[in-house]
């Protein structure tokens, strides 16, 4: 039982949850989308600076639980510098990581393997189905921002 909790709340997640990276509102952001989980009240704004199809900067603000905050923080770290297509491939692959067993993962095109290795720490949420929404909230919002939408809901 406690092993599963440790699996969910790994040190790295607790660290990102307490000290989120890229927790700011960049002046030159040209895309933004709100991510909201109405059930628990988690709310994030994701800010992107997109230039020539590349995510030059990505940051976020808002409040949420340790899982959603850590996931948002880690998302900003791995998405920065990616092309739109690469960022979307990461989103899809990460989504599989949180929701599906390994053998069911789909092929979402070339994906940054090093980034995915980092994100592996989030895979503990699979044992906690109600927390999957927390882990994927910022990612949904990032994806929405790339697609030019202003909000994403994890419901």
């Amino acid at each position, binding site marked *: *039982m*406690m092993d*599963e*909790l440790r699996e*969910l*709340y790994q040190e790295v997640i*607790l660290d990102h949850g*307490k000290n989120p990276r890229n927790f700011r509102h960049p002046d030159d952001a040209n895309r933004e989308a709100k991510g909201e989980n109405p*059930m*628990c*009240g*988690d709310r994030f704004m994701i800010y992107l600076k997109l230039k020539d199809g590349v995510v030059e900067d990505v940051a976020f603000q808002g*409040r*949420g*639980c*340790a*899982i*959603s*905050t850590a996931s948002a923080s880690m998302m900003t770290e791995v998405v920065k510098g990616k092309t739109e297509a690469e960022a979307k491939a990461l989103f899809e692959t990460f989504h599989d990581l949180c929701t599906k067993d390994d053998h069911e993962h789909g092929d979402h095109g070339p994906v940054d393997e090093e980034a995915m290795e980092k994100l592996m720490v989030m895979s503990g949420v699979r044992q*906690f189905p*109600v*927390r999957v929404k*927390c882990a994927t909230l910022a990612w949904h919002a990032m994806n929405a921002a790339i697609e030019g939408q202003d909000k994403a809901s994890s419901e």
Partner: protein
Amino acid sequence: MDTQIADPTLITYDVERVRADFPVLSRTVHDKKGKPGKPLVYLDSAASAQKPRQVIDAMTRFLEEDYSNIHRGVHFLSQTATDQFEAVRGKVARFLNAPSERNIVFTRSATEAVNLVAHSYGRAFLSEGDEVIVSIMEHHANIVPWQLLQADKGVRIKVVPVDDRGVLDLDAYADLLSDRTKLVAITHCSNVLGTVTPAKEIARLAHERGVPVLFDGSQAAVHGVVDVQNIDADFYVMTGHKLYGPTGTGVLYGKYDLLKKMPPYQGGGDMIESVSFEGTTFKLPPARFEAGTPAITEVIGLGAALDYIESLGREAIAAHEHDLLRYATEKLSQVEGVRIIGTAPGKGPILSFTVEGVHPHDVGTIVDQYGVAVRVGRHCAEPLSERFGVGPTARASFALYNTRAEADALVSSVIAVKEFFGA
């Protein structure tokens, strides 16, 4: 010779005997590979209460022996089923001390009961510029129906504040009442703070201006004796599933002269006198507001739930729950970093709290691993969570079957949360 007991609460409340009536309470959660996990510590009854064997059996028996549609058959079963269904209306009337069973309308939920009043009374008797007074601690079920009316009819919504303990600001309420006020809709017990509102005074002040009052009794009806005549409620709503009864059952109490002048809420079978394409006439209340086949079996279950509550005694239940609240509040307050939201005197057995440095959602996940079921989030009362500047909270709620040992389990699981997060 009479053997009378002067004070029924002096009889020791046998909580273990009560627990034996609730099959689910003996289960464990998070079992792994045949190994039992943790005993269930169910502290989420304010969201929905567990059901005693008596309710489950009553519904099973009804389905096996007496089930039929009601109000429409000449055959034996239909009459039997109708009699049993209508008997529950009488039980509900006695439970609320309503003058008559014709004051009792069955709905699907308390939410539907509020919507019924907003839709029927609201659309018929309120118009642009009229005001509806609610409080900041309303459940969304007593906010959104009025907002729909606002969008439809242009009425305005006025909000009574609470102080930092969660006590309703009666002076502010009195100031909000005006010639424009056409309805007051206020909770009788907050589902987040536990605050019990001074219903009688709220109604008295409104009635001075001839304004009817609706009380949301979803929590209050569970934790004490409600007397709709004594508080002089015009409308009172409650829900069956928080009263140890089945889902799909709600109640609207209404003063009969009000119900009688209200137009139908929904149209259909069972609520009409005669139907023709030249014009249809409607039955008198309560039938007028009960279109379609109701949740017959569930209403039978609600009747069994009310019998069960009465068999334990509502004062005895309230005393037991109050003891648990006091005990848990004292223990939880001693944990550093825990903040209790809602400290109104005489509050109901609802304990909302935050743990410094830990989001309630994480609190909920971790205490769940210890078998402790609490609600986390905004509890369908978003304006209130903003008022206290805390956002979401964790909420433990105590019911007639909870124990001091369970309060201890809550406290030790919260301490584990803090250790886990190094908070």
